[in-house]
């Protein structure tokens, strides 16, 4: 109701003022605001802002873990800090942390291990100021190995947390 009343009152007030015989016309700034068109571009999503190119850099969108460990290594710190900063700058931006495990052991237990790694990354992001609502920690267990040989190098590459952003 209030929204309808206000313009009506304005019209009444204007009418009361406009008692001169001559009609005058004036183009005001207010008029151009009414007729102007502000373009909206959703071709890149209605999202929270541009996703910086560095998030696609493989050296900056994964963190690695030691065998049977869920501790964030020191070499992972700058990576986590950068992602936390991005999430703080773009508060509606969402990220999925995908935890992974090497091929040894049962599929379900490895799924739980991958989850524990994803959770470790999530906690670290929160400590750096990211909002919990922005982060989903999931696990792919040993189902998505980046490297498929049964070697220690491969295992190390598969003990990993990945940052995955929606476009």
């Amino acid at each position: 109701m209030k929204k309808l009343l206000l313009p009506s009152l304005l019209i009444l007030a204007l009418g009361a003022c406009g008692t001169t015989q001559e009609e005058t016309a004036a183009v005001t700034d207010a008029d151009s605001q009414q007729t102007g068109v502000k373009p909206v571009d959703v071709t890149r999503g209605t999202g929270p802002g541009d996703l910086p190119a560095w998030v696609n850099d493989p050296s900056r969108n994964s963190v690695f873990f030691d065998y049977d460990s869920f501790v964030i290594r020191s070499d992972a710190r700058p990576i986590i800090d950068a992602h936390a900063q991005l999430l703080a700058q773009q508060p509606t931006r969402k990220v999925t942390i995908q935890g992974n495990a090497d091929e040894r052991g049962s599929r379900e237990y490895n799924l739980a291990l991958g989850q524990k790694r994803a959770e470790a990354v999530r906690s670290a992001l929160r400590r750096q100021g990211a909002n919990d609502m922005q982060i989903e920690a999931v696990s792919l267990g040993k189902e998505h190995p980046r490297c498929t040989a049964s070697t220690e190098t491969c295992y190390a590459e598969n003990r990993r947390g990945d940052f995955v952003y929606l476009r």
Partner: protein
Amino acid sequence: MSKIHVLSIIRLLSTHYAMNNITIFSRIRTVFGSLSRLACTLLLACLAAGAHAQLDITVTGSGERLFPLIVPIFENEGSLPNSVSEVVRADLERSGLFRLIDISPLTLPESRPPDLAAMTARGAHAVVTASVVGSSGGRHEIRLRLFDTTRGEIGGMSIQMSPAQYRLTGHRIADYIYEKLTGIPGYFSTRIAYVVKNSQRYELHIADSDGMNPQPALRSPESIISPKWSPDGEQLAYVSFEARKPVIYIHTLATGQRRVLANFKGSNSAPAWAPDGRRLAVVLTKDGLSQIYLINADGSGARRLMTSSGIDTEPAWSPDGSSIYFTSDRGGSPQIYRFNVAGGGADRITFEGSYNVTPRPSPDGKKLTFMTRHDGHFRIAVLDLASRQTTILTDSSRDESPSFAPNSNMILYATVAGGKGMLSAVSVDGQIKQRLSIQAADVREPAWGPLLK
């Protein structure tokens, strides 16, 4: 897809001699007691035919002296488009308990008592007589009697079938003979589920327990794990990664209808049907690490069952529904625990070694199979719950996902050979080993379905 388990009618005929099953079973055990160390390999020709590759089954580890049995070609079997007796013989032979004596082209009509002296002379300890009789409306009836060569008739049955049901009919007859001679229910008319990986495509397959008649239930570009049969054998719960995260689905096989059981924030995995089929134990991470929850089969009412500061996963119900076995790292290394559903704490079940996971209790509740790490190798073990005795049953290095046959006597599991996943089965005493493989495909995540009444 037509419903595979369209019930055939089984009714018992007269049992003239009240034969004690235990007697014959103990005879089989005696034969096993004197097993030769020489392993023989029976390669059953389950040749790949048609669009879907079949599982080839190899039986190893049986002795040279098995229970000798005659299952002849049925009288009038030529009136059927496919042989039923061939399915019966293959099932019994594959069980690793029997040696089938071939008397073809001789048939032994059900209507006449067999010449037991002549059959004994051929080395048989038991003989089947069987005929295909009458057919009406495209249906046939098979009548069959079972004889012990020293004690006479020990049982008989009649089964009605349509020609298309020749495999299921053969499996049901094999189940009957197996149970009569061993005292243990057969498992041939059951089905198995498993996942086939072909390059980057995953398929959930359902096959007969002999690996024949495989049918794809689901095709996906992403992994599928942890298939679990509903107690009525009509549905499968499984974890699919098609949404780029683990989500639990329930899939009705006959209709192909599938619905999401659990898709909470985080990971959703390790479904386990309660014996009543109305609830499932699942693993969710919505409150942090992997923890066990109870959820109704319609996806409602998820509630946390236990709280630990570490990983709790791989729940499996005891057959009476009173407790849940699970894997937990609460003690520092992954071990198996048991939790009383009515309340109370969790008891640790495994103590040997630093990696014991994937607990699966036997349907009779007497044993627990699990995956164990031994000298760096992953193997399948079985624990006798009464004596607390653990036996390691397998000897390769990447054995996982054990699943009991419904008669509690065999364990199906996944293994890797030549860089390729395949399925194997081992008897709970470790004596009989079977290998199920598909040429050029990676097979994993087996689940043995329930006995259908």
